[in-house]
Every structure is written in structure tokens, then in C-alpha cells.
């Protein structure tokens, strides 16, 4: 009720700003702004998202990107998926923002302003893959509960910020450190101020990798509001939920972090494989620490008509949370024959890699273009949906696009 009232007030203020009533304003997904106002937005405003993106849930906001809109090497803000767990802060104050470092395993608890973080630590800019742990969930049978992501809860922007390692080491990491856990400014959906919407983290070894970042910006601009303005974590290749947004506190823990959505079935899969629909106790579930090898076909666009017997360029991205991608193959006959693609190396660790191939559709008719990436350890994407798990994580089945040859 209060939220509705304040939302109406917010829309009224917006209408005053752009000098016109916001038609259908009540139907704007929470966290989205009308185009006229969002145009100029960098910083504490949401991005004007590409109209091709698909909203799966408007409270909390979950928006995904169709494959053909993920063609850019560096994902622009307007084409990056959004997954919120709670209600984002409406107007975060960058000047007053503080990051506290604390926990059982830190030598000295310290608090930094954003200016201090910028001034005291070396700047870095890296392209890092952000992918929701539940990307691909819609294919699991029996159905797994949660946002029914198809393939588009992934992107690879260039993040601007500092190394988390530098900040943690400035405070001192004790020998007994096991995990880091974040606390952030988004509110629990119930409105209960004592509860974190989400408070996850990564093992200490991952936190201390040089690619693990505290980011202020994305693609040369301040972070958009829905992507964590003014400060967020980015752990490329880990489940996206570890890359906390609107981060205010990071605890160096002497145990596996036990914050909101660390336990139960959240972001966990059976330690030992189970059959589809099998009941599994929570204590038989293990935390997902890296996303599996995966790829997308960004060209051609699914649903397109192409001429037969002429070369059809196929391209896209491939990535792997634990290592680099070693090869990509494409097939136009449902995986019977595979054709090697040319694969580029990543611009940095945990960035996605580009591949390109050419295929020829021999006759008129229906084809599916499939892509299959293989990681450095020889693990390739499966062609069917992999191991069933209660919450539907880690579906890395090869991507398929449908083409008709004429």
C-alpha cells in the first residue's frame, strides 16, 4: 500500500520533470523509467533498456535479452539482463556512500568512501561475464521454480573499478579466512528492514583473484541504477548472484558465508547427481562456484529465412566460468556432424570469446543451427538438458536457432 502510494508520488514527480503526464505510468515495471527521462541517464538512473528485452518479472525486476540482441562483443547497458532480488535503493547517494570491510577474518575493520576507494587503489577495467545461475531454467522437467530464464540472462560488459583483492589486503586478510559475504542496500521484498534481500559471496581464493572487482562503472559510464550504482562486486564466471549490487559492507568470514540465499536450495545443486524430480535433502546440496562452459548463436537470428546453397555466416560468444573455452563447433543437422569455428582468445580472463563459422544449407527446408563449446578440460556443452536439480541451475545445453532455407 505504502509502496503504491510512494510509486504514484514518484511518477507524479517524473511527470513534472518531463512536462507531460506519464501515460500508463502505473504499468511501468518498477525500476524502469520512461524513455524521455532515461535518455540522459548515467549514474543513479535506470538504463533505457532495448525494447527487444523480455520482462519475466516486474517485482522484483527480472529482464532477459534475446540472443540476437547479444551480438555485441561488449554488452551495452541497454542490452544487459537485470535480476533483482529485492527493492533497489531509489536514490543512492554516491557522496555519502560507504563501504565497510569487516568480519571474523579481517585484521582491521575499515570504512571507505567512494573517493577513498578511487584514490587509494589502482584502477582496472576488465570485460567479465555476468550470468545468472538460473539462466536456461525454463527447460528443466519437472519444472524448477523461479524466473523462467531462456538463454538471455548473460552479458559481458567492460567493468570499471578496482580489485577487491587490493581493498581486502589493505585491511588485512587473516589465515583463517574462508569466504567473503556482501551486504547491500536493496530491501527485502517484504519491506522488513532487518532482512537482507540477498547476501552472498565467494570463497576467499576467488575473492583474491586479480579479476575479482569492485566496480563503479560499466562501459565507461557510472553504473546504471539497476546494475548496482554506485558500487558493486563483479566475479566473472561465478553465478551472477555473487556479484552483489549496491554493496555497502563486505565481511571476511572464517566460515562459509551464511547470509540470505546462501543456504537451503539457493544457488546449490546436488553434490551427487540425481534423477529428474528426485527428492534431495538440503545437506546433500553443494554451492555453485563456477558457471559451466556455454555458448550463444547471435547470428543468424532465430526465425529467419535464408537462401539455400550459399554460405551462411554463423557467429556468437562462448564462455566458461572455471577456465577458457578451447573450441567451438557448429552443426546444422541436429548434432550429427560438427564443423569447427574460428575461436578468438578472451581479451582477459573471465571474458567471453567470439567465434565465427560458415555453413551452407543444402536444400530448402527447416534447419537448426547449433553451437557447442568445449572447455580446456575437454568438457563440452550437452545437447539435451543436463543434470536435473531442484532449482533449475546450470543448464548449459547447446543453443539452437531455427532457420528456414528457401
Amino acid at each position, binding site marked *: 500500500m505504502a509502496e503504491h502510494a510512494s510509486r504514484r508520488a514518484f511518477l507524479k514527480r517524473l511527470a513534472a520533470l518531463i512536462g507531460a503526464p506519464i501515460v500508463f505510468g502505473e504499468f511501468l515495471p518498477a525500476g524502469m523509467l520512461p524513455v524521455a527521462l532515461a535518455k540522459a541517464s548515467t549514474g543513479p538512473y535506470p538504463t533505457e533498456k532495448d525494447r527487444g528485452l523480455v*520482462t*519475466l*518479472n*516486474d*517485482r*522484483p525486476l527480472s529482464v532477459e535479452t534475446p540472443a540476437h540482441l547479444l551480438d555485441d562483443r561488449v554488452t551495452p547497458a541497454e542490452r544487459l539482463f537485470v535480476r533483482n532480488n529485492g527493492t533497489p535503493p531509489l536514490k543512492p547517494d554516491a557522496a555519502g556512500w560507504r563501504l565497510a570491510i569487516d568480519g571474523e577474518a579481517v585484521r582491521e575493520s575499515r570504512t571507505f568512501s567512494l573517493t577513498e576507494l578511487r584514490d587509494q587503489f589502482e584502477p582496472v577495467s576488465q570485460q567479465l561475464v555476468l550470468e545468472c545461475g538460473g539462466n536456461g531454467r525454463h*527447460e528443466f*522437467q*519437472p*519444472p524448477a*521454480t*523461479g*524466473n*523462467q530464464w*531462456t538463454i538471455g540472462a548473460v552479458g559481458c560488459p567492460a567493468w570499471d573499478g578496482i580489485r577487491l583483492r587490493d581493498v581486502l589486503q589493505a585491511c588485512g586478510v587473516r589465515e583463517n579466512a574462508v569466504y567473503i559475504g556482501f551486504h547491500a542496500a536493496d530491501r527485502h*521484498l*517484504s519491506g*522488513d528492514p532487518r532482512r537482507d534481500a540477498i547476501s552472498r559471496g565467494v570463497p576467499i581464493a576467488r575473492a583474491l583473484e586479480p579479476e575479482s572487482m569492485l566496480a563503479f562503472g560499466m562501459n565507461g559510464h557510472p553504473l546504471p541504477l539497476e546494475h548496482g550504482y554506485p558500487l558493486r562486486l563483479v566475479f566473472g564466471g561465478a553465478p551472477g548472484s555473487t556479484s552483489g549490487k549496491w554493496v555497502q559492507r563486505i565481511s571476511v568470514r572464517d566460515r562459509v558465508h551464511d547470509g540470505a540465499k546462501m543456504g*537451503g536450495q539457493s544457488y546449490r545443486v546436488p553434490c551427487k547427481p540425481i534423477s529428474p524430480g528426485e527428492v534431495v535433502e538440503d545437506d546433500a546440496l553443494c554451492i555453485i562456484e563456477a558457471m559451466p562452459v556455454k555458448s550463444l548463436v547471435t547470428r543468424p537470428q*532465430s*526465425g*529467419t*529465412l*535464408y*537462401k539455400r546453397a550459399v554460405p551462411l555466416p554463423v557467429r556468437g560468444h562462448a564462455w566458461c566460468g572455471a577456465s577458457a573455452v578451447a573450441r567451438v563447433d557448429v552443426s546444422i543437422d541436429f548434432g550429427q556432424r560438427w564443423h569447427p569455428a574460428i575461436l578468438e582468445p578472451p581479451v582477459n580472463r573471465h571474458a567471453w570469446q567470439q567465434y565465427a563459422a560458415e555453413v551452407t544449407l543444402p536444400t*530448402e527446408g*527447416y534447419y*537448426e543451427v547449433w553451437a557447442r563449446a568445449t572447455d580446456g578440460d575437454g568438457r563440452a556443452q550437452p*545437447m*539435451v*538438458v543436463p543434470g536435473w536439480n531442484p532449482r533449475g541451475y546450470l543448464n548449459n*545445453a547447446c543453443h*539452437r*536457432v*531455427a*532457420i*528456414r532455407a*528457401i
Partner: protein
Amino acid sequence: MRSSALALLALVVPATVCGLDGDGLAEDDGVTDVRNHCVACHSPQLIIQNRGSANRWRELIRWMQAEHGLWPLRPQVETAIVTYLARNYGPDERSRRKPLAPELMPPLPGPTPRASK
């Protein structure tokens, strides 16, 4: 007999098949309880995009009561909600890999198909 059954269908079918309210929830017995008790906290889209049996929906209610502050429900209210959800958002057909979604499919061969390039 046959024509009166058809007439009845004509009255009933549009109400159930096309009877989507502005919030997207299917209009059916129990929808008011769903709006009062479920949509108070989260979007109806969280319901609409999911599928489950009556047991699965009941488990989710228990989980929301245990973990997310959902209040206790009177038994008849809970039954109305679970019945509504299982009837309107019941399990989908099983498949290890389904055909691609209709919106991703190319048009069927027609008299004058045109290539995009």
C-alpha cells in the same frame, strides 16, 4: 441437447479462455484469494511463469511461510489457492528438450517466401 450444450460453451469458453484480467492471472474460482494473499508481496508474474502440481504449490506456500513472512492461511483459503494454482498453472508436458518456442520459428513454407538476405 447438442445445441444447448454448444450455447453453454459459447457462454463459458470466452470467460475462461479469454478471461485474463489486467494483472494476467486467469479468472477462475480462487483468484481473489490469490490476489489477497500472494500478490500482496510479489508480482502475479512470479505465479504466471511457474508450473506445478497442487503438492508443489502447497510446498511453496509452506516455504514462503517458513522463509519469507507469508502469514498463516485458513485451511479453506489455502485449499482455494492451491486448487486454483494447480488447475490454472499445473505441470507442463515433460521433455528433456522441447521444440524451439513458436516465436523463434521461421514461417512455414508459403506461396511467396522472401529471404532476409
